[in-house]
């Protein structure tokens, strides 16, 4: 019997070093596909697992950090508050790669304030929303991202307009805004790999069908609906910094290369109409148009690499604060003496 050699990534680790525990979500859940993409992307990018911090809130999506990257520390925090915990952790250890996983309830309702402010500060993290339009863990109530006219398996049609998290992120000036579908493994993997190579807040809103409560054809977030109504802005290819770009085959049609912070490239190949990811108005127009036509637009909607991250804006010392010594953390005896004296003067 022949043994296939174990495939190793650029830092000589097998994919097994990036997996997690068994999932307890419903069989067929879109979230499990996203977990697999996370494993794949982190492994392919060759990120050392111990340098990643997995962050989540509460809900089906927020349970998933138990199912990937078992060699990374993580924090399954409280409902809607993952961004603030990530902020605190990022401030004291800016060298960690923060990977946040949240859901539509966790982000668009209870946590919308923290989502907004994390973007406003340009917190250096990847923020994945596993967006199915329903609250799964509490048995299928609508969330705030569900489209007007969409209907889940049981109950009335939703009549409220949706909160579009990508629109919101673009309006807030987020430097990396993408939308994808849990069923589009290739696209999602490339986008996530690019997000991991980006410095600053990267929001990926992933349509991820809830197989139990909203996978009926009248649901705009069912597999069948999304498969039939997805409009890709472009095809995406990720070229890691450790692969010389000259060696990558040049596509036949039009394409645009986006250079990412770590030297990697995201190659956008034009499909039909050209989309300029540097233009926020074009990005918003694409979303609006898709919304009017009851479609889901996917791809890299908006990109801007110029902004300072939250930790950079504070002018922190080079060493992560968690690694500072006692001498650097506690002023000297002489400093206190001088301080007391200054008050007496």
């Amino acid at each position, binding site marked *: 019997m022949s043994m296939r050699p174990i495939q190793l990534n650029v830092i000589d680790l097998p994919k097994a070093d990036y997996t997690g525990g068994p999932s307890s979500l419903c069989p067929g859940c879109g979230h499990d596909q996203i977990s697999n993409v996370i494993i794949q992307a982190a492994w392919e990018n060759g990120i*050392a*697992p*111990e*340098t990643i*911090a*997995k962050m989540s809130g509460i809900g089906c999506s927020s349970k998933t*950090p*138990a199912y990937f990257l*078992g*060699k*990374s*520390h*993580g*924090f*399954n*925090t*409280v409902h809607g*508050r993952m*961004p*603030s*915990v*990530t*902020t*605190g*952790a*990022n*401030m*004291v*250890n800016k*060298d*960690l790669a923060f990977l946040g996983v949240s859901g539509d309830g966790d982000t668009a309702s209870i946590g919308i*304030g*923290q989502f*907004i*402010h994390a973007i406003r*500060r340009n917190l250096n993290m990847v923020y994945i929303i596993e967006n199915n339009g329903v609250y799964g863990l509490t048995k299928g109530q609508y969330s705030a991202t569900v489209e007007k006219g969409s209907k889940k398996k049981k109950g009335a049609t939703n009549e409220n307009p949706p909160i579009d998290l990508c629109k919101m992120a673009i309006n807030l000036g987020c430097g990396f805004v993408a939308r994808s579908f849990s069923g589009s493994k290739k696209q999602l993997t490339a986008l996530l790999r690019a997000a991991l190579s980006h410095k600053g807040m990267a929001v990926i809103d992933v349509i991820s069908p809830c197989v139990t409560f909203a996978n009926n054809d009248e649901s705009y977030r069912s597999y069948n609906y999304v498969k039939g109504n997805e409009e890709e802005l472009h095809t995406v290819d990720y070229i890691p910094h450790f692969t010389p770009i000259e060696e990558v085959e040049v596509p036949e049609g039009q394409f645009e290369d986006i250079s990412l912070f770590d030297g990697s490239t995201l190659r956008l190949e034009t499909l039909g109409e050209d989309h300029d990811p540097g233009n926020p108005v074009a990005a918003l127009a694409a979303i609006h148009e898709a919304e009017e036509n009851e479609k889901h637009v996917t791809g890299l909607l908006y990109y801007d690499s110029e902004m300072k991250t*939250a*930790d950079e804006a*504070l*002018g*922190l*010392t*080079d*060493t*992560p*604060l*968690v690694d*500072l010594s*006692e001498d*650097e*953390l*506690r*002023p000297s*005896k002489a*400093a*206190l003496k001088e*301080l*007391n004296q200054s*008050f*007496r003067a």
Partner: protein
Amino acid sequence: MANTVNDFTVNIATANGTGSQSANLILLHSMFEMGVPVSGKNLFPSNISGLPTWFIIRASDEGYQAPGDITHIQVVMNKDTWLADVEKAEPGTIIIHNMDVKLPVERDDCIVLGMPMTKMARSINPKLARMIANMYYVGALAETLGIEESAIASAVAQQFKGKERAIELNLQAISEGRDFARENWNCDIGYSVTARNKDPNTFLIEGNEAAALGCIFGGINMLSWYPITPSSSLAESIISWLPKLREAEDGGATCAVIQAEDELAAAGMVVGAGWAGGRGMTCTSGPGISLMSEFIGLAYFAEVPGVIWDVNRVGPSTGLPTRTQQGDLTLLYEASHGDTQHIVLIPGTVDECFEFGWRSFDVAEQFQTLVFGFSDLDLGMNRWVTAGFEYPNQKLDRGKVIRTQEQLDAIENFGRYRDVDGDGIPYRTLPGSGLEPILYRGTGHDEDGVYSEDPEVYAATVARLKRKIEGSRDKLPAPVMREENDKQVGIIYYGSVENTITEIDDILESTTGMKVSTCRVRALPYHSEVERFIAEHDQVVVLEINRDGQLFGILRKELPVEHLSKLHSVAFSDGIPPRARVYAEMILETLSGDTKEVIA
């Protein structure tokens, strides 16, 4: 006229935002400069400009710091409260008023002294007349009370640090106020100050600034905050001192400061910083604690260190946002849903604000839990004497953190929540270390941190947590006690009641001959010495600034039942810092056997 030296209370009624705070602090500091034992209380409104504010200055050779029971000198400047201020003056009060307000002072039974303060101020600077008018009452009081000119000059210089023009202008106004008083009034008002030997080491400082400096000397890594009176000045003090005290060699900051979007986020950032291995802290007041409660429970259950300072204001709800109370004690001790118990450090002096500022981080990391600093508006925002802060007497205590593979290997059967040492405190590894990574969670978890709904696992986890916090009792600051030989009556109190206790004690002794022991609790869970104190006294009164007797409630729940019949609650709060006579009378009433008040 008989002359009372260094024993009087001045009440100054002004409108908020008119610059009176500078005038009041100059008075306070000038007397302090002369060595007169003095305290100041600012009763200010929740408002930027226009609403009434009162500043109470008490001089007392006895060292009494509570607002006095009687106002001896009333300064009236504010037309909105004018009539009420004048009316409530006791017969014989000296009333100093601004004649330009054009309101009557019809009190034949008082000594009424008027000065055209606004007009005089206008003659030296028309634009700033409204603010400078306040300096005329400073001059008037300086002249009538005999405050030395050098002391005034030094206080003015301190108030307007380096602003030469302001110093000159204000000194001129004060001098003109003095001249007017000397030329037009009979300045023998019966009260005066006499210089005492001032300890050259002493200075006045607000509790919030003292706590802020303590945090900086405690190695704070991350300050997250959301503005709320009366805690904002604690955060702002940290921000202003960090560049001077905590810059790294490369010029970078060693503490991140984030103004959060709300108190929930501020608490979340503290939890995140603690989880990542840093020293995170936020400061707030009661409404903020209510909002932070979910995160407080997470920190307790997931065992994440962090520090939250609560500078208490009057609740419930928005309450009286600029007044003082000890109404949050129970809230802090048991914050969040489910069974919880939190460590609370309770400073009673500015020295302790500094000390507990740094110590709180050590305690939090030692016990891997959230630690509260519990101050209040009176301690936090008024100025108190210190002889200088003392340098921490121990190195930073980072607790049981595993930083190397060797340390990890030394522990047999490591688990994030396994009680290896039998003290309920497990070992932790940090994100980024690559050592035994786990997914922290607020859900049920076993000794390895893995999700569990197992009944035995849950019961064992919360039992260990209780044991862990229980184990902190005698490692936290011990009570400060003064015990009489004859152990008849003991008074238990905490926090800013410290400023009133001596006077209460003296009133009790002078009116009834009763000699009481005192015990100031400085932490929760309370030290075993507190129980001994209670055990050894016949009657014990628990004195606090709230309605319900919150520490009394905690003691009643945790003490052995045989002590309960001797425990009495004396609790009162009206927003004003505690006046000694009010409490002394309540104590006497309670002990006299008025069983309505006595819980047997």
